């Protein structure tokens, strides 16, 4: 019990450190992502580090999932921003309005989906370990 607790604490501390590094990199790349996307990436990192790292599972897997999640977030941001820019050139102000209305729905879809898959990956490896 104590050993497991120490492992969780270690994972949490290391995960927090990893999250800080990733957040710092995001800030450095601030000119590459818009402020909304940067905020969303920070939220994802914060939730991931604080709520997934304390769970049972391999630390390497957690780090890998954290990094993959950030890559997906950046990729989504690039694709969606490019799409919005190009669409605005063709459709003008109308699409701008549509974009701002749908943005809340679309901008977070990757966070929830990836979060869910990460939990599934950790849970599956826990099941395999028990078996």
């Amino acid at each position, binding site marked *: 019990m104590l050993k497991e607790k120490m492992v969780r604490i270690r994972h949490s501390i290391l995960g927090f450190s990893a999250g800080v590094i990733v957040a710092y990199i995001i800030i450095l790349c601030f000119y590459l992502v818009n402020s909304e996307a940067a905020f969303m990436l920070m939220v994802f990192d914060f939730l991931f580090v604080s709520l997934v790292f304390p769970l049972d599972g391999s630390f390497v897997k957690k780090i890998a999932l954290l990094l993959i999640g950030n890559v997906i977030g950046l990729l989504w941001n690039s*694709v969606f921003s*490019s*799409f919005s820019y190009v669409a605005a*050139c063709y459709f003008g102000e109308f699409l701008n309005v549509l974009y701002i209305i749908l943005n809340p729905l679309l901008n977070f*879809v990757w966070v929830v*989906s990836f979060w869910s898959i990460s939990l*599934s990956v950790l849970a599956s490896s826990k099941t395999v370990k028990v078996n």
Partner: protein
Amino acid sequence: MLPAPNPMTFIVLILGVSTFILIMLLPAFLELKKPRDAGPRTIMNNIIAIPQLPTIMEAEKPMLDPTLCQKIAEILVALPNLEA
């Protein structure tokens, strides 16, 4: 003013956005189509299987009559003595 981009770029980006959203929602559709963890979750210390609910007539008789069980138990206990 920036020049309008190539129409092909626009189509590629639409496909990119749509594909991304589909990929993100794909696990959900997969789990719905071929459920591997559909539940229900087993809760502890439960329950004997009941394949069908009793009809009104059957409900008048309990599924496991405690008196009958006791009689069977008494018979089982007595059997070794008979053998002896």
